[in-house]
């Protein structure tokens, strides 16, 4: 039995809970219930050579890094950084959260998700900016918890990164 603790990080209301729900239960809901504290879910991912159980810690979204409970990330082997593509500020928030976590626990694999890709008309992140981040060798996905687009791909990618 191989398990890995994964933390969902990102600003307020970017869709962390929705992504986990989409990935684990294949459902989506419009209604927004903010996460208080932490919600834990589990999903087994079958990789070519093994199966890894992802224990997904869905943390409350924080726009303010000051109040972030870094202790929840202790022991995690991977991060899912979530950005809301319709709110530019959430990109900065996600990057800051990652820095904070790295400062505390050292570098760890992560995927960067630009979520809500279905809301094309309200999209504010320029492609050039995403390309720049890709140049750094980062794993980046444009996801939608609503349609499910690229959600599985992103989690599978992370699963294969942490299972090494």
């Amino acid at each position, binding site marked *: 039995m191989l398990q890995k603790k994964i933390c969902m990080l990102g600003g307020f209301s970017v869709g962390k809970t929705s992504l986990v729900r989409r990935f684990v239960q294949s459902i989506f809901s419009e209604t927004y219930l903010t996460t208080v504290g932490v919600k834990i879910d589990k999903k087994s991912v079958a990789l070519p050579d093994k199966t890894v159980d992802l224990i997904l*810690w869905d943390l409350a979204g924080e726009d303010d890094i000051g*109040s972030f409970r870094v*202790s929840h990330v202790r022991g995690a082997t991977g991060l899912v950084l979530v950005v809301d593509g319709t709110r530019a500020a959430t990109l900065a928030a996600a990057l800051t959260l990652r820095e904070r976590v790295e400062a505390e626990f050292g570098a760890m694999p992560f995927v960067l998700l630009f979520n809500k890709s279905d809301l094309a008309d309200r999209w504010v992140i320029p492609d050039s900016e995403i390309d720049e981040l890709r140049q750094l060798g980062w794993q980046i996905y444009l996801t939608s918890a609503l349609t499910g687009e690229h959600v599985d791909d992103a989690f599978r990618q992370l699963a294969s990164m942490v299972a090494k």
Partner: protein
Amino acid sequence: METLRQLLVSREISELSRVTHLLDEPEQLAAAVGGVLPSAAARAPHAQLGEALAPAVERAVQRSIQKSPRTLTDILYPVFLPAIRKSIGERIDQTFQSLNETLRHIFTWHGLKWRFESWRTGASFSEVVLKHSLVYRIEHAFLINRNSGLLIAHVTADNATSEDPQLISSMLSAIQDFVKDSFNEKEQSSLDTIRFGDLRLWSEVGPFATLVSVIRGNPPEELHEIIRDVLLRIHEESSEALEQFEGDSSQLAGVEAQLQTCVELKQEESNQGFPWLVVTAALLLSILAGGWFFLSWQSAQRWQAYVSRWQAYVSRLEAHPGIIVAEQQVRDGQFYIAGLRDPLAADPQSLLSGTQVDPAQVHSQWQFYQSLEPEFVLKRLTASLAPPDSVRLSIDNDRIVAEGEAPDTWIDRARAAAQQLSVGGPVFDISRVRDVSPEVLEAERWQAYVSRLGTQPGIIVAEQKIHDGQFYIAGLRDPLGADPQSLLSGTQVDPARVHSQWQFYQSLEPEFVLKRLTASLYPPDTVRLSIVNDRIVAEGEAPDTWIDRARAAARQLSAGGPEFDISKVRDVSPEARAAEHWQYYVSRLEAQSGIIVAQQTARGGHFYISGLRDPLAADPQALLSGTEVDPARVHSQWQFYQSLDPKFVVKRLTASLTPPKSVQLSIIQGRIVVVGEAPAAWINRAQAAAEQLSADGVVLDVSQLRELNLAELNHLREAIQTTDIFFSSGKVVPGPEQTPVLDRLADQIKEFAQSARKSGVTARFMLTGHSDTTGRETANASISAARAETVRALLNKRGVAPELLLVRGAGTFEPAVPENSQTGSSTNRRVSVTVNLD
């Protein structure tokens, strides 16, 4: 009794009201909630508004947490208050429930015993209950990585089930985090006990792993030590693997054996598996509330364990059914006890042995009474009723139940006893004793037969009775149903004593109706009749004629009988019907004049047609409308031809001959008859056409055509044609003396032209110019033409349509008089007029 009750439960009642008051303390609640959600609280009744505000309120709470983490606990408290209050509310409800339960069973033996003890020792009733039920079992052991909260190993006791140990493991560590953060606990200390109802989660924290035990029941404190030992041993054995644990538990397989020793720990076998699934659900829902329970539980941990030998004896007595200890006392080294005992109960004195209480120091006072506890009542009943061997008495849920067979005399006695008992005592249920008197047996058999008949379809029992050992039955039966006589076999009813009277009737029960329908409707092989929910359902395929018959039958049935549903029978006739529609269309085409159908077939649902059509005939395509033939499936091939049908011939003649208005073409008995008046030229053309047509066998009768009668016009024509316009020598414009002539001529021409047009004839007027012979011939020719042109212009000026006027120059060639005569030259210089009709 009232005082006794006061004595026993007043403490609980006051305690409860205190707790309820504390929880509902309005100021505290209002202050806490009001501080965070003032406006929301003000508008609480508007559910929708509350929902709309929820995210903003949540946001506000988060902000305030961010500002001052030190008061986190204080701020969290009101946020969680509703949830916690709800949980507490439920707990209180439960307590009430169990208390009510207890009050109701105040005289059950455990209840009484424990209440006396509580009263005697000063411990609360619940403490006494707890003490007496000190049984526990470790149902689950989780070994959890301290760092990541990932599950290292999990072991379960037999019969215990669990949701998802991996998830639970992570959640437990999240709770630990929460408590640590919320209550400013130091890093090393951690949440070590959580309690959910009967279930406790104990956690022991080691350097690398935490061992969480899920314990059902009431474990002794010493159990902590034992669990700690297990954790220590696990760390000793596998400290390296534990330290390096990264989610792969395969290296730590040996740990399970250690955990297993933990799970085997228990005191006294528990009856059944705890509803662990339910508890897990509660765990998931109230992760955070769990933190609170932790606090409240600690305060509930105070209990004492002192029990003296005497008290052991007293409790032993109290535990005995049929003994009620009313009072007991220790005074001056002597033991005093008083109470009630049932003569059938154990002897209190003899129970002293083995208690190490000196009998000499015991002073008892016992009064006999009849215990109403079921087991005593059972004993007394057994003694007094002497039930036969075929009857068994037993206790079932505090009721005494008699089962088996007995003659009616015994049953009567038992019934009397049951009636006597009813006041205050347990219920004595004799309904399960079967009366086995011989007549009763026979009657039972007869009833079995009757009810057997009753369940038979097609048999209606109208009346039945037993009289003088004879059985009488009357009713109706369907001839298609079973024979009542033959049903007697195997019932042990003597046929010789059965007197039946059956009348035949037609049962409306579905199966009979089905049989009759099958016989009358002769359904084709492709139709299946069956009974579905008391309805007769026909399925399959049939021609519409059969469906019509079935429909008629269904309609007839409707009154009172079962429904006959033929909606599932497919009409196989559509193709046939489509073919009919097609044939109708074809015949419609054939009836059309100017259309000749040469060939037509229907093949594979498509229709093919070919033939001839006159361009003047109706459009075959347009004729499709209203025939219900699908145009998309019609494939036509039409060749144009000229129809010799008189109607078409008339049309064509009208188009080509353009008969004058005075002429009428009509068809009389297949012949085309032309009547009326026409100019000779037109009559000639009509005659030519008639000849041509006669070769094709069409008769065009022009014999009744009369030449147009222009008699009236002849006079006018004469006048026009005798008019000449004269010119001076060498002139092409007539002199002024000619003006009245021109005026008159113009009027005459106009009148003539109009009259001719009325007769359907066009009149044209030829103006011919002439010259005298003076001068060169060529000059004369041009002068003559010029004179004609001039006259045309002058007539035109006078209102004559120019297209009616033709001009020509005749030069000297058509002299009116010989040139050498006296007036020759001047008479010949003129323009003459001739009238043409066409």
